[in-house]
């Protein structure tokens, strides 16, 4: 309530300042168009111009939009940011920054530094089994038949200002193409690093195309090295082919100066499977916008999320599942613990279209609030136009169970450890959905550390940045893919 009043009072100034950043973005686009579009093919140039027109119309999102009611970007949009419009010149050895902290966990690592794909020798590689992996900018030019078929086809920029802004400015990012009938045995790990000595606005863009009957595991990490303010506006498009399957994880452990809007579009063809799990452990403002569209029958999508937030951190999970075709199943489970002044939003929207008979859709959001200052706005929402469907939704907000606390303490376990045990047990339901045992173990440890207050923003899932001597060379074994 208080929050709303403040917003109303600030409305005038807010609008003026928002326009300012929008204006700056627009003049930047006009002035630097040649530079921004230097890797464009005619198709990309067309997407860019259309998206720019949309951004001009839509501007930045604000709290008066229904989908943005709970997440206020005013402060983040009030700051000055630099944008990197040329390939990032870095003298640091990015590969050397990484240390895979997950024992026995073989990953193929691809990195973005301030939005730009980082590499030593090849901007784009084709591996023996036909997987193409590397820089999106290079893919524009080298693989127009793939890019033109998928790029900007799923990311709708006509109704979302940030997606429009991303498409208008996107220059590079990660491109992954898995041909038909390939099971990618190693996990591909995409790490998005921000390291700069000024406030930075990053338009990260990724395109992932998975062919028929193929299988891919993807871990998407959002990390930041420097403690400068950053705004990451990330858009990822994923096409999952017929009977293909994708196991997708998002790990977010950001510093509190950062704003991260991570929008991901999954397009599923007939018989495909998706499991997506977003683990948010720290961050300033994090918004995960996950949109799934079933473009064929017999698809399945499991969308999970866990968020552990405290201090003034804010988490917003938006999920939209479009049951456009019959015989598909979607299941959502989001769980969160909020302490101090932390705030959260869960907005789950399942749309079951008229012809999507035999749809199964489940939504569940469970929250524990540890302080009376923490808030959660939970809104599971079903919109159904078919008549032969099974759908359910639920949301709970509560404190730690007093009966369980008494039971645990009566065995000699201290109050603080009893709380830990209950919080951990609450989180475990989502952690246990992780199917890679080594990754599950690692996340499990991170969750425990987070709950004990021992996880810092520098204690990353994959990289260790704190001291020189601790840096271990991360080896990529190409032969394993």
């Amino acid at each position, binding site marked *: 309530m208080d929050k709303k009043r403040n917003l109303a009072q600030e409305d005038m100034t807010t609008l003026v300042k928002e326009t300012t950043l929008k204006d700056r973005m627009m003049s930047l686009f006009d002035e630097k168009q040649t530079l921004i579009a230097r890797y464009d093919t005619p198709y990309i140039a067309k997407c860019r111009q259309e998206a720019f027109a949309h951004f001009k119309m839509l501007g930045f999102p604000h709290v008066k939009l229904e989908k943005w009611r709970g997440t206020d970007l005013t402060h983040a949009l009030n700051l000055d940011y630099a944008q990197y419009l040329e390939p990032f010149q870095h003298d640091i050895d990015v590969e050397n920054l990484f240390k895979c902290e997950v024992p026995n966990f073989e990953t193929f690592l691809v990195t973005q530094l301030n939005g730009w794909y980082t590499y030593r020798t090849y901007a784009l590689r084709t591996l023996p089994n036909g997987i193409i992996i590397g820089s999106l900018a290079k893919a524009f030019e080298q693989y127009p038949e793939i890019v033109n078929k998928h790029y900007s086809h799923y990311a709708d920029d006509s109704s979302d200002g940030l997606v429009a802004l991303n498409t208008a400015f996107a220059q590079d990012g990660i491109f992954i193409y898995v041909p038909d009938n390939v099971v990618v045995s190693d996990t591909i790990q995409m790490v998005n690093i921000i390291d700069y000595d000024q406030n930075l606005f990053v338009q990260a863009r990724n395109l992932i195309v998975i062919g028929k009957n193929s299988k891919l595991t993807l871990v998407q990490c959002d990390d930041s090295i420097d403690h400068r303010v950053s705004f990451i506006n990330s858009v990822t498009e994923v096409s999952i082919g017929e009977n293909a399957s994708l196991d997708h994880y998002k790990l977010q452990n950001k510093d509190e100066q950062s704003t991260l809007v991570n929008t991901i579009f999954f397009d599923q063809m007939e018989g495909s499977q998706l499991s997506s799990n977003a683990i948010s452990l720290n961050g300033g403002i994090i918004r995960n916008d996950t949109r799934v569209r079933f473009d064929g029958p017999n698809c399945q999508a499991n969308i999970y999320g866990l968020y552990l937030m405290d201090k003034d951190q804010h988490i917003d999970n938006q999920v939209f599942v479009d049951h456009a075709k019959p015989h598909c199943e979607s299941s959502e489970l989001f769980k969160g613990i909020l302490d101090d002044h932390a705030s959260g939003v869960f907005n789950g929207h399942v749309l079951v279209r008229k012809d999507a008979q035999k749809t199964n859709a489940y939504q569940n959001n469970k929250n524990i609030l540890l302080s009376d200052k923490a808030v959660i706005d939970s809104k599971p929402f079903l919109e159904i136009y078919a008549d032969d469907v099974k759908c359910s939704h639920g949301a709970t907000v509560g404190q730690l169970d007093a009966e369980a606390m008494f039971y*645990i*303490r*009566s065995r000699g376990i201290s109050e603080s450890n009893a709380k830990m*045990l*209950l919080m951990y047990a609450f989180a475990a339901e989502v952690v246990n959905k992780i199917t890679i045992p080594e990754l599950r173990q690692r996340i499990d440890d991170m969750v425990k550390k987070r709950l004990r207050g021992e996880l810092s923003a520098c204690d990353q899932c994959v990289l260790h940045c704190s001291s020189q001597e601790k840096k271990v060379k991360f080896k990529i074994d190409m032969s394993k893919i």
Partner: protein
Amino acid sequence: MLSIKNLHVSINGKEILKGINLEVKAGEVHAIMGPNGTGKSTLASVIAGREVFEVTEGEISFKGKDIFSLSIEERACEGIFLGFQYPVEIPGVSITNFLRTAVNEQRKYRGLDAMPAAEFLAKMEEKKALLELNTKLTNRSVNEGFSGGEKKKNEIFQMAMLEPMLSILDETDSGLDIDALRIVATGVNKLRRPDNATIIITHYQRLLEYIVPDVVHVLFEGRIVKTGGKELAVELEEKGYEWIKKEI
């Protein structure tokens, strides 16, 4: 070991216990019997430290210490164990993990090092065998999806692992079939030692056929109205609680 003097307890302004006096010595088994709603479970909860109750008068000392100055967990570490009438389900926490945490926190309180993993596992195996507990049960979450009998066996299993000085078993016999009752009773009997004590809270005399008490108390309307030997339980079973009502 346990000394309760003139204990008065209220909840939401309503007096439940109206002056309880009870002395339990090491090596003894006491049974507290009485009809439903007379304050038996309240007494057990207050000893364990449940915070919803208000102690308005009286004192409880355990091994000479005033227990009202101790937290729930400190009482447990001092050696008080409560077997719950309705054990709580804790999804996501395995029994093994739960007990290892409990055992080691109690050891820490007593100035001991954590129990080595191998020793802990061996002890678990020994106590599981004692209670004829399904070996797979301990990998499951605490009480989650357990049958009534499994929950009660799990309470006794925890008691066996924690080796308390004073065990208070609150209606442990309720909801048990005859086989489970026999197993639970055998467990309790095997765990009896000259230096520990047990308080059995029960509505029926049935459990007392297996665990023979030294002293039987009848709790009625917040007061202990009658105390006797094991024959009192038999008499109660024959005559019913109406008999007590008439006597007072």
